[in-house]
């Protein structure tokens, strides 16, 4: 649920970064969105602990409010061709190959989304690889982690910062709404069929890749939205995993 909240509430961060810097430079948007993501996590925790609100209510209030703020900002500056609701909410993966990144000499070095997402991928792999045990212990038993001197809130915010990073790096391609499905569906499917955390991480990546590839071909066949088809496939994978676990019992 926090992934869902973050994917929506990063919107004002993106827009504010765009307004301040005046360009759609990915680095700035990622920083803006990353800050908003951490702020969202912080606000959710704050309302939950200081305001005595249930977690779901706290999530609901925080992200809808920030998202609404983002929508107002986007529509207010809708005159600009580069940033509009449609692009942010739905994304368009078909534009990825033509949105190139250039080096200083002006030569194209590759599609922007591919480069940005590759960097994000490396950052995430390194983070999980190096800090696996800290993430593991603070997620499973925050009290025990705190008791032995591993701050669970610090790791929670770092993890949520990375979720924001992933979300904003992906939203240009699949949009702020469908990115939620890609965050949650492959992982949920993996959760159903394995009880080993390392396998779960590998399997959910695998399901994500399969959803992307099959989804692309599905949309090619149907001549429909690519992102929509990808999420449909990930939903189907989840359904199959669910059936498998039910039949096993």
């Amino acid at each position: 649920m926090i992934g869902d909240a973050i994917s929506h509430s990063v919107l004002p961060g993106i827009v504010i970064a765009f307004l301040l810097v005046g360009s759609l430079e990915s680095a700035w948007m990622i920083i803006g969105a990353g800050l908003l993501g951490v702020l969202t996590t912080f606000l959710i925790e704050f309302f939950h602990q200081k305001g005595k609100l249930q977690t779901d209510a706290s999530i609901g209030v925080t992200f809808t409010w920030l998202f609404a703020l983002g929508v107002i900002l986007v529509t207010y500056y809708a005159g600009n061709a580069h940033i509009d609701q449609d692009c942010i909410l739905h994304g368009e993966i078909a534009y990825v190959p033509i949105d190139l990144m250039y080096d200083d000499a002006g030569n194209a070095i590759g599609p922007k989304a591919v480069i940005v997402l590759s960097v994000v991928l490396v950052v995430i792999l390194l983070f999980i690889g190096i800090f696996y045990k800290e993430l593991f212990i603070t997620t499973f038993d925050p009290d025990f982690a705190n008791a032995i001197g591993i701050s669970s809130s610090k790791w929670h915010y770092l993890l949520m910062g990375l979720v924001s990073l992933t979300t904003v790096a992906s939203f240009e391609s699949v949009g702020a709404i469908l990115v939620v499905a890609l965050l949650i569906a492959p992982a949920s499917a993996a959760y159903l069929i394995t009880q080993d955390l390392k396998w779960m991480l590998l399997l959910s990546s695998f399901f994500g890749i399969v959803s992307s590839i099959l989804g692309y071909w599905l949309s090619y066949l149907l001549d429909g939205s690519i992102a929509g088809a990808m999420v449909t496939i990930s939903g189907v994978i989840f359904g199959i995993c669910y059936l498998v676990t039910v039949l096993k019992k």
Partner: protein
Amino acid sequence: MIHHVENPALEIHDLTVSYDKKPVLWGVDLTIPNGALCGIIGPNGAGKSTLIKSIMDLIPLNSGYVKIFDKELDEIRKKISYVPQRESVDWDFPASVLDVVMMGRYSQLGLFKRLRKADRDAALSALEMVGMEKYAKRQIAQLSGGQQQRVFLARALTQNPEIYFLDEPFAGVDAATEKAIIQILKNLSEEGKTIIAVHHDLQSVETYFNWVIMLNLRLVASGPTSEVFTPQFLEETYGGKLTLLSEVGELVKERGFHAREKQ
């Protein structure tokens, strides 16, 4: 009656803790001797778990301080182990028994270090101590309540600490597990380790613990079991709580306190 000792393992001075401006622990001041096997008893909502959590610095203190072996918590964390309430974690979490037990070794590893064979061996021998060596590969979701509690104790054992804090280690466990756990705790106590556990069952206090802390928002008594586990302090601790009062009544009757009071 609050029995103070020299060179205590645990010293709590004037501790006050509150939730939402409502105090849940009020002016607690006590010392526990080194090597004590100590039970914290008191009615529901008396602040037993809160006391343990405030010792572990998991909740903010309004006033007072806690010292362990005359040191601040941060200086001595590696010598302390904490066993949270079993219900405080999600047992459906994707982890094996060995994964959880090895968490006890994280404090000694520090950042960037990976678990080694020595950590694995330590975890396996801790599992052996609690009689769970056969379950090392088992997923934690498949454990019974008693087995979960044994896993938590094994995790604490791998830290090889000097002092243990256990939050309701006997809650919802089977009789065999309870017996096994108290035997381990007694052995540790004989080795000179200090153990402090939240406990509910008044019937077993005298056989389990040699030191008792009696709590009901404020500290009613702290001292050797033989001196403070008396009808007078029990009534003072549980007074007004009807169901518990009858339990105390049962206990008093069973032990024939009536006769002595009449004399």
